[in-house]
C-alpha cells in the first residue's frame, strides 16, 4: 500500500514538472542565500582570524622610540640582557609589499605566520639568503628580491614575512629595529626601562577587542542579512509547499477515501518533503558556494577598505556549510510544512477547501499578530531613543523589521477596506473584496517583499550617504593636485629646494604614532596654509580653529578620537607634555584610529627627528604637467613616487566602491527571492480561487479580463507594500547610520535621501511583482471553460 500511495503522491510531480522545479528552485534558492551568506561570513571570519593570528603585532605591548624614530639593535640587546623579554620587528615596503622582519626565536606567540612556527626550516629562514613568506600573488611582486620566495597562502595579500636580518639587508637598514614587541609574560626581575633604554616608551597593545569589534560589526551585519534571506526563504518554501498541498487536496481525499490511514499518509508526505528538502538543500549549498565565491573578493575588499584588515581571498567548501545548509533546508521545510500537515491532519475526510473560513480564521490571527507587531514597534521606538551599543543597534533593526513585517497585513487590510469603500462599480467592489480575501494567502510573500525592499532602501541609503560623504571628504583630504614622496631626507630637502617658487605651496605630510588621551593616535604636523582653511570641514569647531592651530595652542582631532576618548572642543590634551586646546573635530571616514593635527612649527619642536618625506603640492591645474616634468627630469624623482590627485581619488573611490559590492549583490538577490515568493503564493492561490472566480466568469467577465485583474492586483499589492517599505527602509537607514555605524565604526554619517533611487527600486519591485504575477494570470486566462464549468457540477 505504501508503494501505491507514494506512487500516487509522487505522480503529481510527474504531471507538474514545472511546479516541482519551482518548489525545488525555491527551496534551493533560500538555502543558497542562507548558506552563501554564511559561507562568505565564515570564510571572511576564518581569513580574518588567520590574518589576525599571523600579523597581530598590535596585540602586544610595544616599546617604541619616543621620537617616533628607529631603535638601535644594540638597544634591543641591552634590553634582553637587562631581563626584558622583547622581540625585534622591522618593516618596510618593497614594490608595494609591506615586508615585516621578525626574529622567529624570540617572537611572542602568534606574531609570526603559523607555517614558520611549525614546519619551517629555521636555518633556511635565518641564514644565508633567507626566505620570504607570502602568498603567491604578493610573491610575484617580490620576484627581483634577493631571497628565496616561499608561497604561504595563509598570509594576507600585500604582506610578506622574512627574518629580521634578511629584511634589514633588503631595506639596507643594518642594525635598526622599528618596534620591540613585549612578551605578555615577563621575568620576575628586570632592569628598569629608564636605565636600559631611556629613549623608548611603552605603548600598550591594542586590545583586539577594538579591531574585533569593527570586523565583528561587519560580520554581524552579514549575519543579519543571512537571517533576512532565510526569513524570505522560509516564506517561499511555505508558499511552495502550500501550493503542493493545496493542489493535491483532491488526491489526498481520494487516497484517504480508499482507506489509507491518515498517519501513514502524513508520514509519506513528510518523507516526500524530506527527500525534496535534501535534494534542494544540496543544490542550494552548491549555489550558495557559487554566490559566496562570486562575492568573496568583495568581502575581502570590504574588510580591506574599511579597516585595513587584509583577508586572504580563498574559498573552501567547509563541511559545516553542508551541514548547516542541509539543516536549514530541512528545518525550513519543516517549519513551512508544519502548518500544512497539521491542517491536513485536522481536515475532515471529505472536506473541500473553505477559503472564506480560512479568511475569517486569519482575521482572528491577524489581531494577535497586530498586537505583537505593535509591541515590537514600540520596543523599536524605545531602542531608537536609547540604543548606543552595537547589539542594541541590531536589536533595534530586528524589532523594527519584524514588527513592520507583522504589521503589514494589518496595514494592507486597512488600505484595501478603505479602497473597497470607494469602489462604485460592481466589478470594482468585487475586486477589492476578492483582494482582501486573498490577503492571508499572499501576506507572507508580501512581508518578504517588504523586508527585501526595506533592506534594499535602508542599505542603499546608508551606502550612498557614505559614498557622498566620503567623496566630499576625499575632496577635502586630497586637496593638493600632486603628491610626491622622497625616499631619504636628502632627497626630501633637494625636492623642497627644487620646487621653491615653482608651485603655490608645498605641504609636508609628517606624522608620529603616539598616545593622545590614552588613545593610539597619529599626530600630524601641518603647515599653516589656505588649503586646510578652504577645504577642511569641521563637524564642530571654534570660529578661528585654524588660527589657533597656527598659533601653536590649538589642535584639531578626528571624530574617532573625539568619540573614543570622549573629548570635546575646548578640552585640553597633552602631546609629549605640551598642552593643546582642542579647537575642532573633523570627519575622518574609513580610518579606524585616532588622528590629530597640530601646527608644523610645534610638531618639529616636539619631534625634531621626524622628517617629512611626503609632500602635497598645490599647483594650478594647467601647471600639473609642467611640475611633474620638473620633478622627474630635473629633480630625478621617479614617476612611481609622484601621485596625481585625480588618480589617488579614483583609487580611493575604487576601494570604497568595492567595499559595498557584497551588500548590493545581496540586495538584488533578496529582491529576486521575494519575487519568487510572490510567484509561489499566487500559484498556490490560483487553484483555490477557481471556484470563486467561476461565478464572476459566469456573469460575463472574460477569462482574459480576470487574468489581467489578477496581475493588476499583484502589482497593486506590491505598490502598497512598496509605499510601506519606504518609511521602513528610511528608518532602517537611520538606525544603520546613527546607531549601528557610531557603535561599530566610531563616526556618525549624515543621512542623505535619494528619491530617484527609491523610485527606481519601487519600479523594480513592481516589475518583479508583475513578472511573478504574469504566469499565474496567464494560466488563469487560459483555464479551459470546461474546468470553470466543472465548479458548478462539483460538490464544492
Amino acid at each position, binding site marked *: 500500500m505504501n508503494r501505491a500511495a507514494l506512487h500516487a503522491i509522487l505522480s503529481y510531480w510527474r504531471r507538474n514538472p514545472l511546479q516541482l522545479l519551482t518548489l525545488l528552485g525555491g527551496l534551493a534558492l533560500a538555502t543558497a542565500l542562507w548558506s552563501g551568506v554564511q559561507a562568505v561570513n565564515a570564510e571572511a571570519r576564518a581569513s580574518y582570524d588567520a590574518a589576525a593570528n599571523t600579523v597581530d603585532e598590535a596585540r602586544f605591548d610595544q616599546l617604541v622610540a619616543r621620537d617616533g624614530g628607529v631603535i638601535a*639593535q*644594540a638597544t*634591543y*640587546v641591552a634590553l*634582553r*640582557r*637587562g*631581563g626584558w*623579554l622583547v622581540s625585534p620587528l622591522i618593516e618596510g615596503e618593497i614594490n608595494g609589499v609591506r615586508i615585516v622582519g621578525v*626574529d*622567529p*626565536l*624570540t*617572537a*611572542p*606567540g*602568534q*606574531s*609570526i605566520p603559523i607555517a614558520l*612556527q*611549525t*614546519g*619551517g*626550516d*629555521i*636555518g633556511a629562514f*635565518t*641564514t*644565508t639568503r*633567507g626566505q620570504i613568506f607570502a602568498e603567491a600573488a604578493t610573491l610575484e611582486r617580490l620576484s627581483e628580491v634577493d631571497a628565496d620566495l616561499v608561497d604561504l597562502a595563509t598570509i594576507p595579500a600585500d604582506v610578506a614575512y622574512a*627574518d*629580521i*636580518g*634578511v629584511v*634589514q639587508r633588503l631595506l639596507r637598514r*643594518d642594525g635598526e629595529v622599528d618596534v620591540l614587541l613585549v612578551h605578555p*609574560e*615577563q*621575568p*620576575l*626581575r*628586570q*632592569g628598569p626601562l629608564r636605565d636600559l633604554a631611556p629613549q623608548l616608551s611603552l605603548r600598550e597593545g591594542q586590545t583586539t577587542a577594538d579591531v574585533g569589534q569593527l570586523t565583528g560589526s561587519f560580520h554581524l551585519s552579514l549575519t543579519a542579512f543571512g537571517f533576512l534571506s532565510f526569513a524570505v526563504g522560509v516564506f517561499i518554501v511555505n508558499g511552495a509547499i502550500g501550493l503542493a498541498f493545496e493542489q493535491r487536496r483532491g488526491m489526498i481525499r481520494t487516497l484517504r477515501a480508499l482507506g489509507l490511514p491518515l498517519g501513514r499518509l502524513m508520514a509519506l508526505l513528510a518523507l516526500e518533503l524530506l527527500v525534496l528538502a535534501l535534494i534542494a538543500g544540496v543544490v542550494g549549498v552548491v549555489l550558495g558556494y557559487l554566490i559566496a565565491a562570486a562575492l568573496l573578493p568583495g568581502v575581502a575588499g570590504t574588510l580591506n577598505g574599511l579597516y585595513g584588515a587584509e583577508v586572504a581571498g580563498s574559498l573552501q567548501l567547509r563541511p559545516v556549510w553542508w551541514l548547516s545548509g542541509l539543516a536549514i533546508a530541512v528545518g525550513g521545510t519543516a517549519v513551512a510544512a508544519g502548518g500544512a500537515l497539521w491542517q491536513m491532519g485536522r481536515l475532515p475526510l471529505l472536506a473541500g477547501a473553505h477559503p472564506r473560513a480560512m479568511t475569517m480564521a486569519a482575521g482572528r490571527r491577524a489581531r494577535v499578530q497586530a498586537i505583537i507587531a505593535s509591541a515590537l514597534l514600540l520596543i523599536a521606538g524605545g531602542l531608537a531613543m536609547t540604543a548606543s551599543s552595537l547589539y542594541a543597534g541590531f536589536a533595534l533593526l530586528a524589532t523594527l523589521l519584524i514588527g513592520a513585517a507583522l504589521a503589514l497585513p494589518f496595514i494592507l487590510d486597512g488600505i484595501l477596506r478603505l479602497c473597497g469603500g470607494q469602489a462604485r462599480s460592481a466589478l470594482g467592489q468585487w475586486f477589492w473584496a476578492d483582494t482582501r480575501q486573498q490577503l492571508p494567502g499572499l501576506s507572507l510573500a508580501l512581508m518578504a517583499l517588504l523586508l527585501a525592499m526595506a533592506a534594499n532602501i535602508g542599505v542603499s541609503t546608508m551606502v550612498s550617504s557614505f559614498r557622498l560623504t566620503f567623496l566630499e571628504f576625499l575632496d577635502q583630504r586630497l586637496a593638493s593636485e600632486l603628491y610626491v614622496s622622497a625616499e631619504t631626507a636628502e632627497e626630501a630637502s633637494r625636492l623642497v629646494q627644487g620646487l621653491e617658487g615653482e608651485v603655490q605651496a608645498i605641504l609636508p605630510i609628517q606624522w608620529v604614532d603616539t598616545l593622545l588621551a590614552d588613545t593610539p593616535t597619529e599626530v600630524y604636523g601641518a603647515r599653516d596654509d589656505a588649503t586646510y582653511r578652504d577645504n577642511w570641514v569641521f563637524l564642530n569647531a571654534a570660529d578661528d580653529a585654524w588660527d589657533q592651530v597656527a598659533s601653536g595652542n590649538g589642535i584639531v582631532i578626528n571624530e574617532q578620537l573625539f568619540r573614543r576618548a570622549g573629548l570635546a572642543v575646548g578640552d585640553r590634551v597633552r602631546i609629549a607634555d605640551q598642552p593643546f586646546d582642542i579647537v575642532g573635530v573633523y570627519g575622518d571616514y574609513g580610518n579606524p584610529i585616532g588622528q590629530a593635527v597640530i601646527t608644523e612649527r610645534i610638531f618639529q619642536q616636539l619631534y625634531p627627528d621626524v622628517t617629512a618625506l611626503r609632500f602635497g603640492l598645490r599647483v594650478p591645474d594647467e601647471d600639473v604637467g609642467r611640475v611633474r616634468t620638473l620633478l622627474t627630469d630635473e629633480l630625478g624623482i621617479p614617476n612611481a613616487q609622484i601621485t596625481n590627485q585625480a588618480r589617488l581619488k579614483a583609487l580611493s573611490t575604487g576601494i570604497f566602491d568595492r567595499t559595498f559590492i557584497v551588500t548590493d549583490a545581496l540586495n538584488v538577490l533578496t529582491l529576486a527571492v521575494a519575487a519568487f515568493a510572490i510567484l509561489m503564493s499566487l500559484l498556490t492561490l490560483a487553484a483555490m480561487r477557481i471556484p470563486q472566480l467561476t461565478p464572476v466568469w459566469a456573469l460575463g467577465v472574460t477569462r482574459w479580463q480576470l487574468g489581467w485583474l489578477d496581475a493588476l492586483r499583484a502589482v497593486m499589492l506590491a505598490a502598497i507594500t512598496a509605499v510601506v517599505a519606504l518609511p521602513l527602509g528610511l528608518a532602517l537607514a537611520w538606525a544603520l547610520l546613527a546607531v549601528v555605524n557610531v557603535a561599530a565604526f566610531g563616526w556618525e554619517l549624515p543621512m542623505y535621501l535619494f528619491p530617484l533611487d527609491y523610485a527606481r527600486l519601487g519600479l523594480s519591485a513592481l516589475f518583479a511583482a508583475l513578472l511573478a504575477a504574469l504566469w499565474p494570470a496567464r494560466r488563469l486566462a487560459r483555464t479551459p471553460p470546461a474546468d470553470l464549468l466543472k465548479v458548478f457540477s462539483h460538490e464544492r
Partner: protein
Amino acid sequence: MNVKAILLAICLPYAAVAQGFAGLGTEADGFGLPTPDPTFVFPDDHGAHPAYRIEWWYLTANMTGDDGTPYGLQWTLFRSALAPEAGDGWTAPQLWLAHAAVTTPDNHYVAQRIARGGIGQAGVTSDPFEARIDEWALTGDWQTLDMTATGAEFAYDVTLTAEGPLVFHGEDGYSVKSAEGQASYYYSQPFFSLNGTLLLPEGEVAVTGNAWLDREWSSQPLSANQSGWDWFSLSFEDGNKMMGFLLRQTDGDSYSSATWITPEGETTPFPDGAFRAQPLERSPTSGPEVPTTWAVQLPERGVDVTVTAINPDAWMTTSVPYWEGPVTVTGSHEGVGYLEMTGYE
C-alpha cells in the same frame, strides 16, 4: 609561537622532526667529529666550539635551605649550530637555547630562552669566561663562578666555588655513546660548593649545597636507534661521586657508561654494561608517566642503591619536554644527586 618546532629544528637541523630524540644529529656533514685522546686547553675549551654541531654547559645543584628543605637547581645553555662556523650578525648559524629550573619538594619552576648568536644576545666566551643568554649568565674563572637566571615565577643568584679538579669522562674526556662509536668530548666540574639565594613565590630562600657542571660537545652524540637517555649524577656521603647513563635503544636494549670519581678527582671509566639502572616505580607528571624511583648498581664499586626523586613532577615543560630533578640516594651508599630522563612519551 610553537617553540617546540623551533627547538626541534634547533636540535635536529637536518633530521626529520618526527624522530624526536632518536637520531639526534646522526649525520655530521661538515662538522667536526670528536676523536680519541683529546687534549683540552683551558680556558679555551670552556668556551664555545662552533665547529661542532651541539654543545652544552649543564649545571645541576642539590641544595638545602636553612630549615633543611631540599632544593634542586638547573642552569643549562645549549648551543646548536646550523653550520660549522661562528658567523656574525643575524645570519650567524649558531642558535642558543637555555633552560633554568628550581625544584622544591612541592613545586617545579621552569623557564626557557632561545636566541641567536652573532648579535650579542647569547653566546659563550672563554677568557674571561662568560656563558650568557639574555640576562641569564654564568661568569667567573671556574675557580669561582657566579650564576643567575630568572623566570616568570622564580629567580636565583648563586656563587659556585670549585673544591676539586675537573674530571674527564670516558677515555680522558672522549666519551663513547654507542656501540657504533658515536662519541663526544665530555668533562665535568662535580666539586662545586654553592651558596646563594633563591627567589620563589613564597619569598627569598638562602641556600647552600653542591653543584655539578657538565661540559659536552659533539656533532653526532647519538646513534640512529637510540631513543632517549636516563642520566644520573650522584654524590655519595663518603665523598665519592658517580656519573652514569643509560642510552635507551629503540630495540629495547640499552647502552650504558659510567665514571667513578674519587674525592680527590681520580676517575675510573666503566664500559657498557657495568652500570645498571632499573626503573622501580613510575609516577604521573605534568607530562607522561616516567620512572621516578630507580635501582642503580655499579657492582665493581659495590654500589647498589635506590634513587628516588625529591619531587616526582620535575617535568620540564620546555619546547622539547623532559624530566630533570634532584634525587636522594639510599642503600649501599647514601647521598643526593640529579636525574635526567629524555625521550619519554
